[in-house]
Structures are given as C-alpha cells and as structure tokens.
C-alpha cells in the first residue's frame, strides 16, 4: 500500500498556502516573512519528492536537494540583509524599507 500522489499534493498545497499566508500577514517582521518563504519552499519540495516517489525517478529528489541548497544561500543572504537593515533603521518592519522608491 502506497501513499497516493493526490494526497501528497494536497498536503503540499496546504503547507504552501500556510507559508503564503505567513508571508502576506507578517509585514511587521521580516524574520516571519522569511519563515513564510521557507514554508512555501518546503511545500514545493514535497511535490518534487512526491513526484519522484510516484515515478521512481531520482530527478525530483535532486531538485529537492537543489532547493535546499538554494534556500540555504537565500536565507544566509536575506538574514545578513536583515541584520544590516536592522542596524540602519532599528526596525524589522518591511514597510519601513523604501529607499529605492523615487521620493
């Protein structure tokens, strides 16, 4: 007895949606926003691994690995940026960062 792909995809969809909600809601805290992104990426990974499981091909798992590598790079950079911004603005509220906008 195996796990049907449909259930995996639905689970991944739920996880992804929770991540999306987290990203959209936590505008007052960049850390939580990044957490939301991590959750969404996890949802995506789950779909890849599920696909790999369903068809017995290693490609999906490789992509999951790639996502992990990319995420680690992204998180390290993003957190470095958060530290930097916190130093300059003394806040983690994303709406306070708008230097690039033409005033």
């Amino acid at each position, binding site marked *: *007895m*195996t*796990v049907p*792909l*449909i*259930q995996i*995809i*639905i*689970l991944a*969809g739920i*996880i*992804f*949606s*929770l*991540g*999306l*909600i987290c990203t*959209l*809601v*936590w505008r*007052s*805290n960049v*850390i*939580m926003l*990044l*957490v*939301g992104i*991590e*959750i969404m990426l996890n949802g995506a*990974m*789950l779909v890849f*691994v599920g696909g*790999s*499981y*369903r*068809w*017995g*091909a*290693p490609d999906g*798992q*490789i992509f999951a*690995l*790639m996502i*992990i*590598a*990319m*995420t*680690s*790079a992204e*998180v*390290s*950079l993003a*957190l*470095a940026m*958060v*530290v*930097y911004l916190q*130093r*300059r603005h003394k806040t*983690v509220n994303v709406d306070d960062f708008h230097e690039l906008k033409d005033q």
Partner: protein
Amino acid sequence: MTMNILFYILAAVMIVATLLAITEKHPVHAIVYLVTSFFAMAGIFYLLCAPLVAMFEVIIYAGAVMVLFMFVIMMLDLGHPEEAQRPAFITWLVPLILTSLVLSSVVSAAVFRTFPGGSNVEITARAFATVLFGRYGVAIEIISMQLLFAVVGALYLGRKGGGK
C-alpha cells in the same frame, strides 16, 4: 497500511505545527514549531523513499537554517514577547481569500487530473549520486557558484560598519 497511517499522522503534525508557527507572535516559539514541522516533513520524505532528502532536510533545514534564524533573532534582540504583536484581523482577511483561492485551485486541479502510471522503485543513494553528478553536473556547478556568491554577499553585508 502502516505507511498510510504514518503518513496521515505526520501530515497532521506538520500542518498543526506550521499553523502554530505562523500564528505565534513570539519569533523564538515560531522557530521551534517550525523545527517540529520540518522533522515531520523529514519523516514524510523518508516514507516517500527519499532517505537522502530526509537527511538533508534534518541537517540543513531543521538544523542549520533554523539555527541561523535563531541566531539572528538573538542578535537583533527581537526575543521580547511583550514587544511583539500579532497582526490585526483585517490583515489576515485578504491573504486568506487569496490563499484559499490558490489552495482550491491546486486541489481541484490535482483531483481532476489523472496521473499516468509508474512504479514505486526505491532510489538508492548510489543511483541518486549517479544521476546527480552525471546528468546534473552543470546544475551542481551553478549551485556551488551561488553558494559562493551568497557567502561573499553575506560577508560583505555583515562586516563591521558595513554599508557606510
């Protein structure tokens, strides 16, 4: 059958942990819930015949990334629950609508889609490595470059008095 039951249990744990994580106003607690969620995810990966990915999930995600988050929270001194506040209800409304839209679309698409058949073959670490370093050699190179850049960028941003 055992496998299915395990899957449902892990899925339930994961959803609940994630829900708690995103609604928790204290960042440190949120991270801890998230780690729980990732452990459940690693279990699911193992169930889905991907022990390597499960291992990486535990080591990198639940381990390194979340510790990184922890460090940053401590560094920025955000760990004061009395200062943190949960977003107002009105800010939840629009994301909820949009997300339910996305979710219903994904679910309906998954339900109405019939998938072609295949075989559930366990993928050994050897087969995984052969494909990874054979067919996806260029991707490995690119990912390693990306990691290098990330290191350089993080060093630049994090140096003392950076950006001045």
